[in-house]
C-alpha cells in the first residue's frame, strides 16, 4: 500500500501498527479521530512530504522516494534520526537490560552463564552508544553545516576539510559491526542456551531483541536510502561550487 496524504491516519495504523513509534517521534499523539495525514501534519506543523516519505519507507521496504528527496531539508531528517536514537537509548535498551538483569530471580540457570549474557549485552550496549555518539557528534553536524553551505553559497573551510577527511560513503559500513553483535547474542540464546526448567524469561528477551533489531534495520535503511543519497548530492554540489 502506498500511503498518501488524503488517507486517514487511523486507517493507516490499523493497516500497519509498526508505524506507531514512528508517528510518536513526529509528536502525533493517539486520539486523532478521523483526521487525514494532511490535516494532522498541518495541525502539528510537520512537513507532509517528509512525513509521508518516512512512513512509506518504514512500511514498504521496496519504497525508494527518488523524486521526493529534494523536497525537504536534510536537517529535518537529522532531527528525526536523533529522536529515534533517543528512543533506543532511553526506552528500548533499558527495557531489555532490565529483563536481563532480573534473570537470576526468574530462572534456575547458574549464575556464571547469566553473568556472561549480562556482560555480553552491556558490551553490545556500549558499542551501540559509541556508534550513536559518533553519528551525533561527527556525522550529523557535518550534514547540517553542509546544507547551510549549499543554501547560502558560503562554504566554510571546515566543511571542505571534513569532506576530505570523511565522506558519507564510509559511513554505511560502520553499521555492520553493531549489527553482528546483536545477531550473535540472539543466536547464542536460540542455539546454545544451557538447559533450564523454565525458558519463558528468555522468550521475552528474544522477542525484544528481535524487535530492537527490526527497528534498527529500518533506521539504517532510512539512513542508507534517504540520508546518504541526499548528502552525496550535496557533496557533489559543493565540489562543483568550489571549482
Amino acid at each position, binding site marked *: 500500500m502506498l500511503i498518501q496524504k488524503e488517507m486517514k491516519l487511523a486507517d493507516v495504523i490499523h493497516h500497519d501498527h509498526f508505524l506507531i513509534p514512528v508517528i510518536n517521534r513526529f509528536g502525533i499523539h493517539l486520539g486523532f479521530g478521523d483526521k487525514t495525514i494532511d490535516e494532522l501534519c498541518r495541525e502539528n506543523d510537520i512537513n507532509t512530504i517528509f512525513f509521508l516519505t518516512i512512513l512509506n519507507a518504514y512500511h514498504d521496504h521496496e519504497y525508494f522516494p527518488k523524486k521526493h528527496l529534494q523536497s525537504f531539508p536534510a536537517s529535518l531528517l537529522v532531527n528525526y534520526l536523533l529522536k529515534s536514537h533517543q528512543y533506543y537509548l532511553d526506552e528500548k535498551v533499558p527495557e531489555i537490560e532490565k529483563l536481563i538483569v532480573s534473570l537470576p530471580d526468574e530462572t534456575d540457570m547458574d549464575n556464571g552463564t547469566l553473568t*556472561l*549474557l549480562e556482560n*555480553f549485552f552491556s558490551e553490545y550496549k556500549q558499542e551501540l552508544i559509541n556508534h550513536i555518539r559518533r553519528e551525533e557528534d561527527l556525522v550529523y553536524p557535518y550534514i547540517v553545516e553542509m546544507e547551510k553551505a549549499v543554501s547560502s553559497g558560503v562554504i566554510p573551510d571546515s566543511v571542505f576539510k571534513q569532506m576530505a577527511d570523511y565522506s558519507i560513503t564510509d559511513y554505511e559500513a560502520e553499521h*555492520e559491526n553493531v549489527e553482528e553483535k546483536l545477531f*550473535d547474542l540472539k543466536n*547464542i540464546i536460540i*542455539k546454545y542456551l*544451557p538447559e533450564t526448567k523454565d525458558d519463558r524469561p528468555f522468550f521475552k528477551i528474544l522477542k525484544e531483541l528481535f524487535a530492537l533489531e527490526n527497528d534498527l534495520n529500518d533506521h539504517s535503511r532510512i539512513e542508507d536510502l534517504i540520508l546518504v543519497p541526499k548528502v552525496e548530492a550535496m557533496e557533489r554540489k559543493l565540489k562543483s561550487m568550489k571549482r
Partner: protein
Amino acid sequence: MGYRQKIVLVEPAYLIRAGLRKIISELPGMSVVETFEGNEIRLIDKILSKTPDVVIINPDVFKKNELISFINKLNNENLVLVGLTGRHTSFGCKSHFRYCLDSGESKYDLLEVLKKINRSLQTKNIESENTSLTQREKIILNRVVRGQTTQEIADSLFLSVHTVNTHRKNISNKLGIKTLSGLTVYALMNKIVGMDEVE
C-alpha cells in the same frame, strides 16, 4: 524447514525485481534477501555483506569491462552467479554465467532453472550442516578467545596462517557466531575455555 539459500538480486527495473521475487517465493528452499538497482556505491561490498549463496544480476547494468571484473570478484567468493538475460543479450555475455534466467521464458522454465540451482547447492550445504566442532577446531577456538593472534596460533600448533584462518572461518560458520565476544561466551558456556583463562 532446513537452510534457505540466500539470493541477492541486482536489476534496475522494479517490475522485473518484483516478478522474480514472486517466482522465487514459490520455492521453499530459496529466498531473496536483498535487491539492488545496480548503481549503488560499493555494490560488491554491499552484496557480500549479505553472504548470499546466489547472486542474480542483469549484465546490462555494467559496462563490458566492469562486468568482467565484477564477475571475477564474485566468483572468488564461491557463490553461484546467475545472469538475468533477455532477447538482446549476446551469446558472449551469457557465457559468463553458469546459469541464465531469460526474461522471455515461461514461469515453469524459470522455475526449472531455479530448482536446478537449488539442487546444485544442496549437496554443498549438507556438508556444512554438521555443526559440532571438531577437536582441532575446539583447540583453535580456545586459543582465539584467550586472545592469541592467528600468527601465534599458527606458530604454536605448527600450522600455516592460512590453515588457521580457514579453521576460524569454519568455526564461525558452524556456530553462526561472528564476533569475538560472541565466541567467548559460547566457549565459556561450553567449557571449551575456563573462566580463569580469559580476560
